[in-house]
C-alpha cells in the first residue's frame, strides 16, 4: 500500500492545482531592469485586484519576442493572455484575428481614448474600426544637437530645415576639424537594418513623400519626393561629406550615440533613449539639447513612430482579468511610474503635463509635440518582408551601387512581386 502514497500525493496536488484561482499570463521581454520592474507592476496589480499574474520572460531581441508571441497565437494557445507588441506588428497580428477587440470593454468601463495619443491609437491600434491594443509607451526620432558648438559659431537656434542643418554642419565641421580630425557634422542610422527604414521614413516624409499605401492596398515607394530625399541622404555622405562614410555599413543607434557621446558630432538623429545617456555624460552635460527633426523648406518635419502596445489574445480564457491588467498598465499612475522609473515616454498624453514629470523630466514636454506628429510605418502582415527589400535597395543607394532613382524603382518592382505571394 505504501507504494501508492506518492500517487495519492500526486493526485491531490493535481486536483488542488486545478481548483486554484485562475491565473493571468503576461508575456513580456526587454532589458533586465525592465523585467524587474514588470515584476513590481505585477505585485502591485495583485495587491490591488487579487488577480495572480504569471510572467513569461522573453528575450531583449525584438524579433525573438515576435516569434515567441506568434508561435503561441498560431497554435491558438490559451497562454499568454496579455502581451506587448511592437508598433509594426500590431496590424499583422490583428489582421490574423488573434487579438480580442477592446471596444466593448472600453465602452463598458467608459475609458477615455482621448487621454492617449489619438494619432497613435488611430494609425496603429485600430483595425477595421475596432481598437485592438493600447499604447504602453511611444518612441520617435529626434534631433540631438550641441548647444555650445552652435553658440560658438554664432547660431542662436537649432536648424528647422535640412538646408539650414546642412549649412551649419558644413561650417562647424570644417572649423572643428582643425583640432579634431574625427569630427562629423551629422550622424544618423544608415546600416542595413530596420533602423534604416525609420530614418528613410523621416527624410522622405519631411521632403513631402513617405511610404504610402494606395487605395488598392499597394505599397508605393517610388515617388519623386522619395527619390529626392534618398538623394539627399546619399549626398550627406558622399557629396557634402558631413556624415561618415561608414554610415551605411556600421551606424546603428548605439554607434551613432557613441560618436556623439565622444564629442565627435554636432547633430545626431536618435531615439529618446539617448537623452538619459547623454545627460549622464559629464563632458556633454548642459551642452546637449533636443529638437524636432528638420524638414524641407515648405514641408513638415516627421518623426518615425516606435514603441510598444498591449493587447489581449483572442484565445485567452481569462479575458476580463486580462482587461483589468491592460487598464492597470495604461492607467495614469502606472504610466507616470514607467516614465519616472524606466524613462519610458508614456502612451497617455495627459501624463506629459503632470507636475512631477515637468519637474523631473522636462524634455518630455517637447517630446509630446514630436509624438503627436509621428509617422507610422505601414501596418501590414507582410511588413517585415517589404522592409527587408526596401532596406537592401536604400542601402545600395547609400553605398553608391545604385542611383536613388534606380534603387526606388527596383524596390518598387521587388515589393510588387513579393506581395503577389500573399494574395489569393
Amino acid at each position, binding site marked *: 500500500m505504501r507504494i501508492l502514497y506518492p500517487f495519492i500525493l500526486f493526485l491531490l496536488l493535481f486536483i488542488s492545482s486545478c481548483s486554484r484561482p485562475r491565473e493571468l499570463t503576461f508575456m513580456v521581454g526587454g532589458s533586465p531592469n525592465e523585467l524587474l520592474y514588470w515584476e513590481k507592476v505585477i505585485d502591485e496589480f495583485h495587491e490591488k485586484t487579487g488577480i495572480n499574474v504569471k510572467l513569461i520572460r522573453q528575450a531583449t531581441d525584438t*524579433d525573438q519576442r515576435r516569434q515567441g508571441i*506568434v508561435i503561441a497565437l*498560431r497554435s491558438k494557445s490559451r497562454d499568454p493572455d496579455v502581451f506587448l507588441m511592437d508598433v509594426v506588428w500590431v496590424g*499583422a*497580428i490583428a*489582421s*490574423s484575428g488573434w487579438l480580442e477587440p477592446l471596444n466593448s470593454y472600453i465602452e463598458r468601463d467608459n475609458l477615455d481614448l482621448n487621454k492617449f495619443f489619438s494619432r497613435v491609437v488611430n494609425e496603429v491600434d485600430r483595425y477595421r474600426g475596432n481598437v485592438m491594443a493600447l499604447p504602453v509607451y511611444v518612441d520617435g526620432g529626434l534631433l540631438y544637437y550641441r548647444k555650445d558648438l552652435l553658440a560658438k559659431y554664432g547660431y542662436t537656434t537649432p536648424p528647422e530645415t535640412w538646408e539650414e542643418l546642412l549649412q551649419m554642419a558644413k561650417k562647424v565641421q570644417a572649423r572643428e576639424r582643425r583640432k579634431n580630425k*574625427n569630427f562629423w557634422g551629422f550622424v544618423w542610422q544608415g*546600416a*542595413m*537594418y530596420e533602423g534604416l527604414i525609420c530614418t528613410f521614413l523621416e527624410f522622405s516624409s519631411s521632403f513631402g513623400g513617405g511610404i504610402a499605401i494606395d487605395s488598392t492596398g499597394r505599397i508605393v515607394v517610388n515617388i519623386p519626393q522619395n527619390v529626392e530625399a534618398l538623394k539627399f541622404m546619399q549626398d550627406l555622405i558622399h557629396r557634402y561629406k558631413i556624415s*561618415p*562614410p*561608414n554610415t*551605411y*555599413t*556600421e551606424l546603428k543607434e548605439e554607434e551613432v550615440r557613441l*560618436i556623439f557621446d565622444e564629442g*565627435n558630432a554636432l547633430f545626431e538623429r536618435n531615439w529618446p533613449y539617448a537623452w538619459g545617456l547623454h545627460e549622464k555624460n559629464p563632458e556633454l552635460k548642459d551642452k546637449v539639447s533636443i529638437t524636432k527633426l528638420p524638414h524641407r523648406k515648405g514641408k513638415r518635419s516627421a518623426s518615425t513612430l516606435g514603441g510598444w502596445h498591449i493587447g489581449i489574445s483572442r484565445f485567452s480564457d481569462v479575458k476580463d482579468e486580462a482587461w483589468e491588467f491592460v487598464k492597470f498598465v495604461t492607467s495614469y499612475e502606472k504610466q507616470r511610474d514607467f516614465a519616472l522609473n524606466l524613462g519610458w515616454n508614456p502612451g497617455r498624453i495627459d501624463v506629459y503635463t503632470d507636475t512631477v514629470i515637468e519637474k523631473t523630466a522636462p524634455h518630455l514636454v517637447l517630446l509630446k509635440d514630436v509624438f503627436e506628429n509621428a509617422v507610422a510605418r505601414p501596418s501590414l*502582415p*507582410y511588413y*517585415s*518582408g517589404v522592409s*527587408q527589400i526596401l532596406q*537592401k*535597395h536604400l*542601402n*545600395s543607394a*547609400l*553605398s553608391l*551601387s*545604385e542611383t536613388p532613382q534606380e534603387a526606388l524603382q527596383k524596390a518598387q518592382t521587388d515589393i510588387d512581386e513579393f506581395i503577389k*505571394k*500573399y494574395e*489569393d
Partner: protein
Amino acid sequence: MKIKKNGEIRTAYFYISPLLTIILLFILIPIVGTFINSLYRDITYLPSRFTGFTNYVDLIKLSDFWNSFKFTTLFTVVSVSLETVLGISFALLLKEVFTGRSFLRTILLIPWAIPTAISARLWQLMYNYNYGLLNYFLDVTHTGAKVNWLGTARGAFWAITIADVWKTTPFMTLILLAGLQTIPDELYEQAMVDNATMWKRFLYITLPLLRPALVVALIFRTADALRIFDLVYVLTGGGPAGSTRTISILGFHYFVNGDFGTGSAVSIIIFLLVFIFSFFYIRAGRFKETL
C-alpha cells in the same frame, strides 16, 4: 567471408539499431520534414496551402538567390583553398622537432577555440572605420586616408575571407598534423637513401599518404563554408547592400520574415549543395580502396 549466416546479419542489425534509430529520428525525419514544409506556402499570418515546387521555382527566378549562391560558392572556393595551403604548411612546420614546438601547437589552436560570434566581433572592431586597428595604423604611419573596409562588396568579401581563414586554419592544421604523424619515418629514410629532393618527397610520399586526412578535413571545411552564417551575420550582416548575403543568411531572412516555406526550400538547397560537394570529395578520396 562473403557468405554469412542469416543469424549473424540479424545480430549485426540488432547491434547497430540504436545508431540507426538516432539517425532516423534526428537526421532523416527533420530533413524529410523540412522538405515537406518547403512544398507549402507557409507564411506566419496566412493559412498554409500546398503549392508544390512553387517556392523553388520562385527562388530560381530571384536575382537575390543567385547573388547569394555566387557569393557563397566563391567564398567557399577561395577560403577553403587558402586554408588548405596554409594548413598543410603549418602542419609540415609543426611536425618538425624544435624548441617551443608544443607551445606553438597550443597557441595555434586559440583562433579555433574562440566562439565564432566573438572572433567575428573582434574582426569587426579591427575593420571599424572610426576606432579600427587597421585605420589606426593608416593614420599613425601617414600612409593614407582612412578606409571603410566593409563598405564595398569586394572589401567585405576579403574581410570575411581573411577572418574565416584566420579562424579555421588551425582546424585544418590539426587534422593534417594527425595525418602526418601516421606516415612512417622509414619511407622518408628510404627516399633520402635514394637522394629524393624535398619536393619529391612531399609529392610522392607525404601528399598521397595524407589524402585520407586531407579529404576528411576538406569535407568538414567545405560543408562549414557552404553553410557559413555566424561570421557573416556578425561582421557585415549581409551588407553592404546585400552583397555578402550567403545562402544561409538568405534562408534566415525568410524565416525571420515568417516565410517558413521558402526558408525551408533554401535549407534544402543548402543541404543538396553540401551533399554534392561531400559526394565528390569522397569519390576523389577513393575511400573504398583505403577502407
